[in-house]
């Protein structure tokens, strides 16, 4: 009995070791493809978020609001939402797109959406550099609380990962999810205070926005980057709680749907 249990734990450990090697390779391969194996590709990957940010800042700060730290406000919100949207949209098709591999070898299928989420961290990193530049240019201080961003980021990754698992499973069975999710994301983006401030809204909107998970992720990130204030324990717990909940939901759906992937892809 004990020997069996030991053997089983060993087997799981071996599986995890194997999976992490595969995951590392997939992420590396994705990044290489992102850079398109050329220096121009690297520059493009760096410039793309930067230019995007500049457009955002230009449009929103010149037309809507003239507050000094508005660029920081827009950028910090936009990059947070963009990571969630980018990684989950990418992961959505991951199972179907890798049908060639899934059909021919035994592989832990959850590695495909996972690799996509981790790959998107690269864009996030570049956006982060862009944000730091914008903060410097607008002569705002960079606070010590920036150091807590990696910890906060774990909760955002958890949330995205859970959603990625959920969506990639659904896409196997329902291919129109892709279009629906695109529309949903647009709606979601405008319901999140990226370009508008909650304080300026009607009370009904103010109370409603609290049901939007991204509101909390954006707010916590802003308090770290823009205000230099540690977010309150409730917000932090909520971020991690929502991340964990999404992982459990996505993981359960994935586990359930996984058994029949091969028959539908």
């Amino acid at each position, binding site marked *: 009995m004990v020997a069996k249990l030991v053997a089983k734990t060993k087997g799981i450990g*071996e599986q995890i070791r*194997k999976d992490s*090697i*595969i995951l590392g*390779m*997939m992420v590396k*391969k994705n990044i*290489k*493809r992102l850079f398109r194996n050329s220096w121009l590709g690297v520059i493009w990957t760096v410039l793309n978020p930067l230019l995007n940010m500049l457009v955002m800042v230009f449009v929103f700060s010149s037309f809507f609001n003239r507050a000094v730290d508005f660029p920081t406000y827009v950028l910090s919100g936009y990059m947070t939402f963009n990571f969630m949207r980018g990684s989950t949209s990418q992961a959505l098709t991951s199972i179907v797109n*890798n049908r*060639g*591999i*899934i*059909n*021919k*070898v*035994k*592989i832990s299928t959850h590695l495909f959406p996972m690799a996509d989420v981790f790959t998107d961290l690269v864009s996030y990193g570049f956006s982060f550099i862009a944000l730091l530049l914008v903060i410097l240019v607008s002569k705002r201080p960079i606070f010590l609380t920036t150091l807590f961003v990696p910890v906060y980021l774990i909760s955002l990754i958890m949330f995205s990962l859970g959603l990625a698992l959920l969506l990639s499973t659904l896409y196997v*069975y*329902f*291919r*129109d*999810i892709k279009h*629906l999710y695109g529309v949903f994301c647009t709606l979601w983006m405008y319901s999140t205070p990226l370009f508008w401030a909650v304080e300026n809204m009607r009370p009904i909107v103010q109370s409603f926005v609290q049901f939007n998970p991204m509101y909390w992720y954006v707010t916590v990130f802003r308090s770290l980057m823009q205000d230099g204030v540690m977010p309150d324990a409730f917000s932090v717990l909520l971020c991690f709680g929502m991340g964990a909940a999404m992982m459990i939901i996505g993981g359960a759906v994935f586990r359930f749907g996984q*058994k029949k992937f*091969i*028959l*539908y892809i």
Partner: protein
Amino acid sequence: MENENPVLIELKDVSMMFRLPTQKVDNIKEFFIKAVTRKLKYREFLALDNINLTVRKGESLGLIGRNGAGKSTLLKIIAGILTPTKGKVSVNGSIAPLINLGAGFDHEATAQENVYLNGAILGFSRKEMEKKYNRIVDFSELKDFMNVPIKNFSSGMLARLGFAIAVDVEPDILLVDEVLAVGDAPFRKKCHERIDEMRNKGTTYIFVSHSLDQVKRLCTHTIWLKNGRIFMYGPSKEVCAAYEEDCKKNPNIEHDDFSGAF
């Protein structure tokens, strides 16, 4: 059985039932329309019917049968890609599957990346694969194409690469499905030699082919699958002869649920 080597593959009462939708529904819109109008109908198709199979270490097993007899399904179940609807499968040892030309390839990635990716899937780290890399390239004779995305590869090149990886990782069990059919004659010869070498070293393999000569040459025993059942099992010569006879007598496949998809 005369062989007392350890059992590597054991299948007990394995059945595989596919539910083939009479119309393909893969989006929400149609799913709801069909669910409401109760038009979601499936046709059941028994691809494998109560298969019992024991493969011991060092055995070389051929698998023959008409299209749609369940050969690939059986191979996929042994490889762990498909889970059977009924029955128990136990496999002891590492498996290198080569199903439908080549291993699990990412067609957007280069050949080199695929070598490492496949190595990782089979449980080898990058470092371990680096030692094998040159041998794999040499065996496949694709030195000039290693930086090409394999979506540009021909089926022969894919087969070469897949086979070269599979034999170099020295699996306990090698599953080969028709890979050798697309290679040219010199490469086929090289593969045969390599398979002989592996058999002498004690590698177990299951070999699916429509070339009875290959099966007779490479496998001591052969299974003839017919309509998802083991129709005949025995020394390759006898089974192949009986199969050949049957193909002459009944050139048409006598199965109303024929589906080549699996």
